[in-house]
């Protein structure tokens, strides 16, 4: 039995399972058939089972400023999001093109700045941007790679319409959820995977290791030593840091395990200090080196930037990549893609109003109730206004913030985000989703893991999918050809 009543309430959105009608779309046919033979009560039991499993494994994230919920589970919905092979092929090509452009852009802005000379990007976009690190000027990272790991946030609005919301080029998180979600689904519904051929994702940790090992510094001799730098067990993504270190057989280190010894960054082992070749850091630029950046940082390694510049270590992602996922730079992405690849961007950019420009600001202020307004440097869904969902008071409060500091904001139209059904007590119900595919970049090439992390807004009508704001996740299936 399939109850899909709520569909009637949301006719304006494209549902990835049912499109705009009542019959399942092609990629969902086999799943819908299986689902039709299932009993809702059994699935709800399975759902509780999945939650207990996540709790036991410890797949949790920490919420800042909430001691009672210091280790929270991200709700997991067991209805997969399914993407056909040919749909995915186009998305993957688009992501690859974009990531290629991002790396070329980063190399350019830290060297000759051709894009500025060509008049395609205003010089002040770099000069006045905190994410632009003067320390990186003239520096070429090992292997020529700036963004080893990228998480490109996408949303879908129709059959063939995908938009890039953000290029997370600093330290994108969530890949452990992608992997654990798949493991959980394999554990709970083995029969589904024998009926439906899904492209695997489990190779990700090995690919990550290979990808990072492809960018060793000059000082490396022999088999490279890899380490994951975490801010520590109280960080919101600690589980993921430990998971990735474990899965790719790297050491999980904190700043106080490291020091500079003989021109190398070395970790304190039971047998003395041992040099690290590639450091996958999950610590922001600002905290990386108290001698170069924030002097109060306890999370980094004093002197690591000098070692880096001298070819003693690879830092992934490279310092200063944040400039590429800056929300103000984002609005120039179609130009950036074209400038460096000579091709039109395959994936759409969301039209973006830069509030630093007087005309744009006026338009945004006049249309606040229709727009999504974001902080240029914000993340995690904090400090943003979703116009259509906001109260009058929230809008007028936000207007004051915006007027007092317009440079800090960009605004975008509210997109008609696609929905995917979730399992509820009353059967299936559509909820808005986004998608974060994970991309690995090495001198050998760009690898896009099929699928990625689907985040889902669990309350009806909500567009906010961030886990820090009560969003959940789903397993994402890209079907075999």
């Amino acid at each position: 039995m399939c109850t899909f009543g709520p569909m009637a309430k949301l006719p304006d959105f494209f549902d990835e399972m049912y499109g705009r009608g009542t019959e399942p779309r092609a990629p969902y046919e086999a799943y819908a058939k299986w689902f039709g033979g299932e009993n809702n009560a059994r699935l709800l039991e399975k759902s509780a089972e999945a939650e207990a499993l996540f709790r036991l494994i410890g797949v949790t994230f920490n919420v800042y400023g909430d001691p009672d919920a210091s280790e929270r589970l991200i709700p997991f919905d067991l209805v997969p999001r399914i993407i056909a092979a040919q749909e995915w092929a186009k998305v993957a090509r688009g992501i690859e093109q974009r990531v290629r452009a991002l790396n070329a852009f980063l190399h350019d802005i830290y060297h000759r700045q051709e894009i500025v000379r060509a008049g395609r990007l205003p010089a002040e976009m770099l000069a006045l941007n905190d994410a632009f690190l003067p320390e990186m000027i003239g520096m070429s990272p090992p292997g020529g790679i700036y963004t080893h790991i990228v998480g490109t946030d996408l949303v879908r609005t129709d059959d063939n319409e995908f938009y890039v919301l953000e290029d997370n080029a600093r330290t994108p998180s969530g890949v452990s959820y992608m992997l654990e979600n798949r493991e959980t689904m394999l554990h709970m519904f083995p029969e589904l995977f024998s009926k439906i051929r899904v492209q695997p994702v489990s190779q990700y940790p090995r690919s990550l290791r290979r990808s990072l090992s492809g960018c060793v510094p000059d000082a490396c001799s022999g088999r490279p030593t890899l380490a994951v730098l975490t801010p520590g067990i109280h960080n919101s993504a600690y589980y993921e840091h430990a998971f990735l270190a474990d899965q790719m057989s790297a050491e999980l280190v904190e700043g106080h395990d490291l020091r500079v010894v003989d021109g190398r960054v070395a970790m304190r082992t039971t047998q003395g200090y041992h040099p690290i070749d590639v450091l996958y850091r999950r610590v922001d630029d600002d905290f990386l080196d108290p001698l170069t950046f924030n002097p109060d940082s306890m999370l980094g390694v004093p002197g690591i930037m000098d070692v880096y510049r001298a070819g003693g270590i690879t830092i992934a992602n490279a310092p200063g990549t944040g400039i590429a996922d800056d929300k103000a730079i984002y609005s120039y992405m179609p130009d950036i893609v074209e400038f460096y690849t000579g091709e039109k961007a395959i994936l759409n950019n969301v039209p973006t109003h830069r509030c630093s420009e007087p005309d744009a600001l006026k338009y945004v202020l006049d249309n606040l109730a229709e727009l999504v307004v974001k902080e240029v440097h914000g993340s995690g869904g904090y400090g943003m206004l979703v116009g259509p969902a906001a109260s009058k008071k929230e809008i007028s409060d936000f207007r004051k913030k915006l007027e007092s500091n317009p440079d800090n904001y960009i605004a975008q139209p509210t997109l008609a985000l696609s929905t995917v059904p979730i399992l509820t007590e009353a059967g299936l119900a559509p909820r808005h989703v986004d998608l974060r595919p994970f991309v690995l970049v090495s001198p050998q090439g760009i690898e896009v893991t099929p699928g990625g992390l689907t985040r889902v807004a669990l309350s009806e009508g909500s567009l906010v999918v961030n886990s820090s704001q009560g969003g959940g996740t789903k397993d994402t299936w890209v079907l075999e050809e």
Partner: protein
Amino acid sequence: MLGKTAGGLFWMFRYLERAENTARMIDAGLRISLTRSSAAESEWTSILSSTGLRAAYHATHGTIDGPQIINFLLRDPANPGSILAGIETARENARLVRTALTREVWEAVNECYMVLKTTLAHPIDDRDLPRVLQIIRQRSAYVRGASHGTMVRNDMYNFARIGTFFERADNTARILDQKYYILLPSVRFVGSPSDNVQWETILRATSSTRAYQTLHEGENDPRAIARFLLLDRRLPRSLAFCYGKISENLGYLEHEYGTRHICHELVSNICEKFKADDMNAIFEYGLHEFIGDFLRDSASLGRQIEIDYRFSE
């Protein structure tokens, strides 16, 4: 491996072992207070001393009171040395060294924590106490079993084992330190009812009642009990057994790393004292002095291991 990871494993297993031992001591105390209420007060006092928590208890609580002490040892938020706090710290260390643990070990310690956090969320009623103590022993045994069955026998495993045996020997020694006088060759009539109960407490607190009875054909003899807990290598809680293991584990590290440290000298000095296997000599030297020396030597060894293997900066 990282020095921090070695330290995390060492302490994770120490805290687990300690929680389990505290549960045994509560069990022994409970038995005494049920069977001989007149001896209860001094028994609880000695249990508090054995766990090293006597001062902490008196700082927050006035009188010696069985149920209050049980609550203090199990779960009192005012007691940083409670079983619940110990399990929390063990799990915190497990999270820190997550990459060094197998999935089975992590899940066993995580589940131990989840079960006890729920079980010990409220004061435990007398009727439930035996069941709760059993849960604690059982959960701790699961972690040990998972480690035994799934961990690769490398340096990580050896640091985990050193933590276990170090804590266990320390606990046995502390119990003896409190009770040494009843094990001295007595001028009184051996086997008075009072002594019998005291001996039984020692054996219960070290979970060795059955083992002792089997190996000694039911004969309660203080000398034999002392010998059993100090020197008998068949008993997994005796000092000689634990130090035999620690010596093997440190020996593994010496061989594997190719470096002999000061801690290797210290452990071989301690083992030397058990080598003669001579209880008479120990009584001659003084049982209390012998145990006192051991506790000091063991504390030095613990500090030296941390330095030699760079647990911290």
